């Protein structure tokens, strides 16, 4: 696993926040547009949630070994 996962998470969160802001800034929410945004958001939430599904931690022990010159 690389940093990519976290970047996606950050990006997803940013997108989600912007959707939330959009909703909060609308005086009268356009139904069609609103439902589109909600669908988009739901997908982002779902994909972000996957990241939290019991990701096991890795454990590596470091030693001052001969090979480590």
């Amino acid at each position, binding site marked *: 696993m690389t*940093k990519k996962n976290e970047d996606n998470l950050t990006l997803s969160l940013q997108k989600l926040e912007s*959707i*939330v802001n959009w909703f909060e800034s609308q005086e009268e929410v356009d139904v069609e547009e*609103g*439902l589109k945004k909600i669908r988009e958001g739901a997908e982002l*939430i779902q994909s972000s949630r996957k990241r939290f599904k019991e990701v096991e931690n890795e*454990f590596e*022990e*470091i030693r001052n070994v001969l090979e480590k010159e």
Partner: protein
Amino acid sequence: MNIRVLQELVAWRKERALREGVDLFRILPNRALEDIARDMPHTKTELTSIKGIKERKYFQYGKEILALVEKHTQREIIETKENISTKEEEASVVSEVGAFLDRVNRALSSCQARIRGEVSSVQHRGRAVYFTIKDRKESATLPCFMWENDRMLSGIQLEEGMEIIVSGFPDVYKPMGKISFRSTTLELVGEGALKAAYEKLKSTLEEEGLMRDDRKRALGDFPRRIGIITSRDGAVIHDFLNNVGKYGFQFFFQDTRVEGQMAVRDLMQAVRNMKSRDLDALVIMRGGGSLESLQAFNNEALIREIVDAPFPVIAAIGHHKDIPLLSLVADITVSTPTAGAQILNTQWEAIQQRLYEIQNTFLYYSTQQIMHSRKKIDAMSSQIEREGARITERFSRIERIFESYVIMMRENIRQKSLFLEHVPEKLFEQQQLAIGSLKKRFEFWQRSLLAHDPHRALQLGYALIRFQGSIVRSVQEISEGDKLEITVCDGIIQVQCKAKTYDKKE
């Protein structure tokens, strides 16, 4: 190649590197260690002929390496020549002074000791420190030698009168033939001394601004690559791992001693190892302890090592009273491994929480959209209902009015018809009544007429006297000579008044 010698050389190099705070190859490269294990040198010439070991290295490590090799050679001799007493043999052999002192030193190097005493003199000479410690009770002194580097690692500024414990082994300095104690570590004795040293370093670090919050680094977003430095033994590492969330952390763990003078070297080497890795954070942990047991975490050299780490350092060191200086300088400070784990969890938990919140917001907006539309429909339909009701109401009002009119009319008719029904009857009654009364009147009139009929009176003998057509009632109405008519019942008599007389009564 003598594998046992190589193993010991590797162990020796590790210890050396830790003590000097340098990388392993700076002590000696692998190749040189292998060559030593192969050639098993016994003299300076033999040793310096090995590639990588020149005068300087020999000066630094020569004796130790030769002693190490010698130890094995001796052991082998003992093992192979079991029946021969080496001591007796050696005693009979004539040695040169230098060689003899080498032998003495080899023997002395196994006299590892920890010695307590009071510092009576201190001299700094370049990379070395010469000092003397004396017994507190009896008259006994011990000259000591220490590398400046080792002294710095011990974190103790030597001062006369200070009570310390030195660790190391005795050694004869060949040019002078004098014994000195080669110290590898120093420790302060007594809570008071420790406390004073603690306070002194604390104020130094404070003055340098190392404890200021604005210097400290915050934990970045989503920490994942985490270095852990603590002891493998004890509950600390378990507490930490049990409390850290399963967020896909990558832990790089290094086991170190966490107490005693060697702990500083271990910890420093571990921090250096961690610095070479691309970490998001480093966690340094240790269970609680007294000021004395936590000395390693009050070590200046170690503290300076973490100050310039390229990642934030989390200190999770338990303590009774005085916070370890390392904790004060660390970027994030907690006092338990559990709290340390929670620091790492925080952001992951927060983002999970935020996701829930966003999800709820979406849920809210989507329901709101539906609700909004529904409300609109509801509003419209109720408006239509109202309008409709208004029409029907008007209608029903009219209906009611109409109804009331009908009722009124019906009542009217009923009353009229009722009246009409009774009219003939009444009329008849009244007629009868009228006729009756008329009849009676007639009868009355008849009787009256009969009673008053002058004719009847005339018959009775009464007469009517008229003068010029009018009835005469009084004497005065006529004069003498007037011609009068007297009516009787069967005709008229013409007379003339001869005289008139008034009634006497008048």
